[in-house]
């Protein structure tokens, strides 16, 4: 049974609150602003471009709510020997050896505008949807793992084990590649990705093509950077505070 999207009034209230908070202090907290639900039968279009903004200064020590939320939503377990089981989102701890400053940053599929994984996929199983979400069409994936090799961030995974008790909206199968889907099953209904919903205030999701969206305003005002920016991949996921 589909959950009903927010009513118009609640949406307006949330937007107003968010705008007010941003006006007071843009870095105060990142409010998750609701996206529009797309009606049934309407295709995703490039008029929207989904992005994620992560403020690592707000990523609290020891917090793994994004990881747990994603794991519950999609049914991957992780936590095995390092590098073995898929882990769609993981938290990096990075320390500057010169100053000792350390940050934590969640790392997931960066949803690049020019994704190397989609370039190398021989069957077009890995593709970039019109609204800039990089997805794996598991109907076409032959499991060659070239995309896993090609990802500059190590956020593509090959499921080498049988899946038991699949999640209802997240099909996963042995022998195919997978990774963060930006929770397309949620964002198509106007909801937030599971990680953003669970995060107490370090993550923001929105439409990068909408000049009035909060994410655009923060990016325009304070900017953010992309990981491995020299590769010019145009990721939808950007980071502040690194």
């Amino acid at each position, binding site marked *: 049974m589909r959950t009903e999207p927010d009513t118009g009034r609640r949406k307006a209230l949330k937007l107003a609150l968010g705008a007010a908070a941003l006006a007071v202090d843009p870095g105060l907290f990142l409010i998750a602003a609701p996206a529009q639900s797309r009606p049934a*039968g309407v295709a995703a279009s490039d008029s929207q471009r989904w992005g994620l903004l992560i403020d690592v200064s707000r990523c609290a020590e020891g917090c793994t709510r994004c990881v747990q939320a994603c794991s519950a939503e999609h049914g991957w377990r992780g936590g095995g020997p390092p590098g073995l089981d898929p882990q769609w989102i993981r938290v990096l701890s990075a320390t500057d050896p010169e100053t000792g400053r350390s940050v934590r940053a969640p790392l997931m599929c960066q949803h690049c505008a020019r994704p190397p994984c989609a370039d190398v996929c021989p069957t077009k199983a890995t593709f970039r949807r*019109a609204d800039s979400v990089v997805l794996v*069409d598991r*109907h076409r994936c032959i499991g060659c793992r070239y995309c896993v090799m090609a990802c500059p961030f190590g956020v593509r995974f090959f499921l080498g084990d049988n899946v038991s008790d699949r999640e*209802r909206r997240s099909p996963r*199968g042995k022998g195919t590649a997978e990774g963060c889907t930006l929770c397309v099953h949620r964002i*198509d209904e106007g909801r937030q990705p599971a990680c953003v919903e669970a995060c107490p205030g370090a993550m923001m999701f929105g439409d990068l093509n909408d000049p009035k969206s909060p994410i655009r305003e923060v990016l325009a005002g304070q900017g953010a950077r992309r990981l491995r920016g020299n590769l010019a991949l145009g990721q939808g996921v950007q980071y502040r505070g690194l």
Partner: protein
Amino acid sequence: MMRSAARPGLLRRFVVPLALGVVVLAAAALVLRAGDNAPALPATVSAAAQGPCLRSAAEMRRIHPTLLKHERQAAVREGKRDPQARIERCVTCHVMRDASGAAVSAEDPRHFCRTCHDQVAVRIDCFSCHRSTPPTTLASGAAR
């Protein structure tokens, strides 16, 4: 090039037996699959059924592969969602339960899709990725 007169050419030695073999195998396959006996559909449709199926039973039998293929192309690659056409809805309405009332998964030959597909010996791949039973509730009691 030295070639003895008694040995037949490449064509006779290999291609003809190969072609004969293919014809025999094809004939055997046709004979063994003779007839188009679609099995009787399971009589029950779940009490949780939410309205009629997308098409009539006879039509579904004929075109469900095309429907599935079309829907998955639209849903996955284009992002066109149709809540009426989700596999989740199919397996919820057509759920088969065992003696204890638990839904059987596609591993079990009593699964709705298996009852027909096992008979016509067409392997289906859907449930290597998709959930084959209706969604269950979370531990908290909320629906997943």
